Each structure stands twice: as structure tokens, then as C-alpha cells.
């Protein structure tokens, strides 16, 4: 075997200093775009065709009964604040989808990074720091949520239930926020989990029950007082409310409470994720 020609030659410029948080994020872009390029087809379907089907079946189909509900002596659309059922659940569905998308990218992919493909350990042996890796994960998941929410917002707009362009933009922003508020703590949890069965619990015990009783599909005021209080304490409800304000344009000062609440949950989750990643990558 000859040693010339095939031996690694000099000439690659490797920055030697400590990268700033921003530089470190930019350095991870090629990896995450490769991942997106590989998986976008499946998500494109999930966030266009599926929500259209949900809006058609629940919004128009089931909504047909709801909107005529006064005939049976019920409140009908009055309990929905005068909205048609379609207009009522559309923002709820956007918020729920954002939560689902955030959870989907925060459970198995994060778990895999520590166990199956160990990519975080690989990243860790480069000039990236643990902080940078956590930032990369959170920002990547937020971008995935943004893509999902962007697609679904187009679908919702086609059903003519968004009041204005500004409303559509606000809807995207609100949905990304509620998605991030769920993703960040789930990233911490997936970083803590040592068995993949623990990840299923996120959906069974967490995301699915929470989203069902979050005010996305019916007003939480219909729930028993205690359950209603619990529902209103959970971040999903705040996200749903915020999304609904965006589509209807009926914005109250409560919006600030929702935004603040979701930001705090995101921040706490981020910090917990940092701690968990530190444990597994930084103190070995």
C-alpha cells in the first residue's frame, strides 16, 4: 500500500477558539438540515392532508350538529362565544398539532442521541459544548414545529377561519410558543430516560389526555370545576387560548399572561434539559 496520495494532507482550516453560542448553533445547521431533508416528506403529509381531513370531519361534519345544537335544548354556538364549531376548533387543532410536533421531535430523536446513534457524544468530542448541543436541540425542534405550524396554517386559512394576515402570523407565533413550551421539558425528560418505554408515557399520560381536555375541541368550562382548574393550569390550554385569539382577532389582555406563562415553561424546560444533558455528557 502506498503512503503517498492517500495520506491525510494538511490544509483544512479548523477554528481553534471557543465558539460563541451563535457560532455553535450555525455549526449544527448542516446536520439538522440533513435530518430534515431525510424526513420532510412524512411530515408534509401529516401537516397538510391530515389536518384538512380533521377540519372536514370534525369541523364541518361534527360541527354541523354542534352549530344546530339549540334544537335539542343545548347552548349551541353560544357556548363557543358565537363561533362556528369549525372556527372554534381550527385554532385548537393548530395548538394541539404544535404540541404533538414538538413532542414527536423531542422524544425518540433525543433518546436516540444518547443511546442508539449516540450523536450527542460525537458532538461532545468536537469543539461544541454541552450548552451548544442543548441549544441546538431546542432550536431544531422549534424550527420543526414552525414548519409544521406554517403548513397547517395554510390549510386552516383555506377553510377561511383566520380573520387577517396579521392573525395568521400571530397564530404561527403562538403555536410555535406552545410547541416549544412542551418540547423543552420533554427534551429534558428524554435526556433523563434510560429505557425507550418511558417515552411512550409522554403520550399516554401526558400529551394525549392534556390535549383532549385543553379547550381545543370544547370549552373547558363544560368540565367539572376541579378538572377545569387543572386544565387551565396546564400550558396547552394557554396555547389554545392564544391561538384562538389570533384567529378570531378577539385579543384580550389575558394574552400577556398566556405568553408569559408559556415562556416561563419553555425556560424552565430548557434549564432542566441543560442539567440533564450535563449529567450525561459533562460529568462522565
Amino acid at each position, binding site marked *: *500500500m502506498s*503512503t*503517498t*496520495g*492517500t*495520506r*491525510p*494532507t*494538511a*490544509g*483544512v*482550516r*479548523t*477554528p*481553534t*477558539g*471557543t*465558539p460563541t453560542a451563535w*457560532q455553535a448553533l450555525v*455549526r*449544527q*445547521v*448542516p*446536520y439538522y438540515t*440533513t*435530518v430534515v431533508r*431525510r424526513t420532510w416528506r412524512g411530515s408534509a403529509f401529516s401537516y397538510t392532508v391530515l389536518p384538512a381531513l380533521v377540519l372536514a370531519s370534525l369541523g364541518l361534519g361534527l360541527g354541523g350538529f354542534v352549530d344546530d345544537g339549540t334544537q335539542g335544548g343545548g347552548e349551541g354556538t353560544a357556548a363557543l362565544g358565537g363561533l362556528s364549531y369549525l372556527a372554534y376548533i381550527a385554532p385548537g387543532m393548530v395548538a394541539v398539532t404544535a404540541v404533538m410536533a414538538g413532542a414527536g421531535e423531542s422524544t425518540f430523536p433525543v433518546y436516540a442521541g444518547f443511546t*442508539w*446513534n*449516540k*450523536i450527542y*457524544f*460525537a*458532538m*461532545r*468530542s*468536537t*469543539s*461544541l*459544548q454541552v450548552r451548544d448541543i442543548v441549544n441546538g436541540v431546542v432550536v431544531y425542534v422549534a424550527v420543526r414545529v414552525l414548519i409544521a405550524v406554517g403548513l397547517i396554517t395554510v390549510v386552516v386559512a383555506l377553510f377561511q377561519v383566520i380573520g387577517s394576515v396579521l392573525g395568521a402570523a400571530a397564530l404561527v407565533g403562538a403555536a410555535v410558543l406552545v410547541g416549544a413550551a412542551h418540547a423543552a421539558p420533554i427534551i429534558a425528560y428524554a435526556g433523563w430516560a434510560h429505557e425507550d418505554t418511558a417515552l411512550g408515557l409522554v403520550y399516554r399520560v401526558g400529551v394525549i389526555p392534556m390535549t383532549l381536555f385543553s379547550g381545543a375541541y370544547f370549552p373547558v368550562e363544560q368540565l367539572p370545576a376541579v378538572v377545569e382548574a387543572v386544565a387551565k393550569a396546564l400550558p396547552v390550554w394557554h396555547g389554545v387560548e392564544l391561538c384562538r385569539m389570533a384567529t378570531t382577532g378577539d385579543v384580550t389582555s389575558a394574552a400577556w399572561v398566556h405568553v408569559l406563562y408559556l415562556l416561563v415553561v419553555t425556560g424552565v424546560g430548557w434549564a432542566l434539559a441543560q442539567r440533564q444533558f450535563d449529567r450525561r*455528557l*459533562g*460529568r*462522565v
Partner: protein
Amino acid sequence: MDKTASVRILRVGRVTEAMLEARGLRKAYGDFEAVRGIDVTVQRGEAFGFLGPNGAGKSSTMRMVAAVSPISGGSLRILGMDPATDGPAIRARIGVCPQEDSLDGDLTVRDNLVVYARYFGISRRDAARKADELLEFVHLTEKADGMVEDLSGGMKRRLTIARSLVNEPEVLLLDEPTTGLDPQARHVVWDQLHRLKQTGVTIVLTTHYMDEAEQLCDRLVVMDNGVIAAEGSPLSLIARYATREVVELRMGVGENDDAAAQVGDLAERVEVLPDRVLLYVADGEKVLEEAVARGLEPLSTLVRRSSLEDVFLRLTGRALDE
């Protein structure tokens, strides 16, 4: 370009410069002390090995040297820098080939290299060029667009080595580089590490294979229970801790101790292992003849040169694979 680069590296190689310097280095996990105060200095251009059985503290040492695991005591300088404060700057200039492959099975072979290079802040053009060059180096060019999960164990290992070189490191850390590989794949890896060594890269590796240490290391330390039991070149260690030759006698069940008593005076040193008796001698054939002349009837015999295996046995009283 190629030539001037290697000349430059060789020139620098003549200057004695510590790439790695550990003094009283310790690593504790809770109450358990994995590394219990070791002193190690590795000079530029050296191939240095940590030899020892599983659990000797080699991997813990490597993780500290790789600037990913904080030290628990003593001092450690890598490339003259402190890993506690200069971790990213150190890692930018070293290459790490971990014991367990951490390749991304969902990416292509080439993308694994390119993506990893970008973590170092290497430009897209340089990363692509370097990836192709390294694939050539580890003979994986034909697999460049294939998926990692389709590679054999030996190929994955070579790809991991290639990945550890994307930033053109000054020090390459290899944790058990050929563990789990078949003999042919091991020789391919050894060949590549030899070639790297020729280019002036400082190599620090751990191994529990004696032949690997003898093949690759200019100098090594024998580690056992978190401390260094001996240090030197493979040959000097053998000269110091073993004789030139070894006679191995395989006796019938339960006859080992009797055999050792019967012919022990012929050897400088005798080791009784569960499955054989080792006689450390200068001239193996002569001693074997004498032993047989005394009426010893071994099931099988072997006369061989002493190896690091014998050094380890002498130092720790245990065989490496026990």
C-alpha cells in the same frame, strides 16, 4: 504541498514538546476511584499506549484527556491548556475515536464526516474535500454514498477513525481501536495507524491487546487498578520484567504444581496458571529438553519469545484476560 507539510511536521517533531502532561491525575465516581494518581507525559510525534485489563482506568483516563470528563484530582494539561477552562479549544485540536462507534446510521458514510467537520467550524468546501480525502485514506471511497448501517464492523471502525481526523488533529486519541474486530480488519486498522504515525500525528491509545501495544506503541504504561504499574518501550519492559524466552507446559489436570516443583529450578521465574505452567528462561529449547529428561510428561509444550503479556503477568500476578 504534500511533501512540505510532512517536512514541517517532522521538523516540529524534533522539538520536545509535551502534548499531554498528567501529574497525580485522579478520577472518582462517587466513592469509586477509577484512576488513582497517575503521572504521564506524551511528547509530540510519539505513539503512546495505556495497556491494561478492563476496569484498569484506561477509558476514564482517556475521557479526561479528551477534555469531556472533569478531573477529580491532580493536574492535567493537554497541548499546554487546561481542559477545565479550554475544553473547546483543546477539542478543536485533538481527534477522538471512542470505544463504541457513535456514527449516525441514518446518514450516508460521507455525510457522517462532513457533518462532523462542520461542528468544528470547518467550511463546507474544506469539509467536503477532507471527507473525500479521508474516505480514500481508509479505503471507503466506494461506500461514500452508502448508509452507515450497511457497513461491516471493521468498516465502521475505519470510518470512525476517519471522522476523528477531519479537523487534522495534532493528537489522536483511540480508545480500544480494534476491540471486537476480526484479525484481518485489525491489521487494516493497524496499517492505517502506522501511516498516520509517519505523518507526525501524536497517537495516544488504550488497549488490552498485547500484540496491539507491541505493534503500535513507542512507549506505554501498564495500568492496573487505577495506577501505573510500569512504564517504558515494549522491548524495555520485556527486558526488565521478563526473560528472553518462555516455555509453556500444559500438564494434566491437577499436575501443574507438581510440575512447577519438579523443574522450577531450571527457570529464573515460574508462573503457575490454571491451565499451564510458564517457565521464564534465557534458552527455551534447552530448558524444555532438560525438563523432559527429568521425566516430565506435558500434554503439550510451546517455546516462545516473551511478550507484554508476560510483563503484565509479572506486574499484576494476573493474566490480562482474567
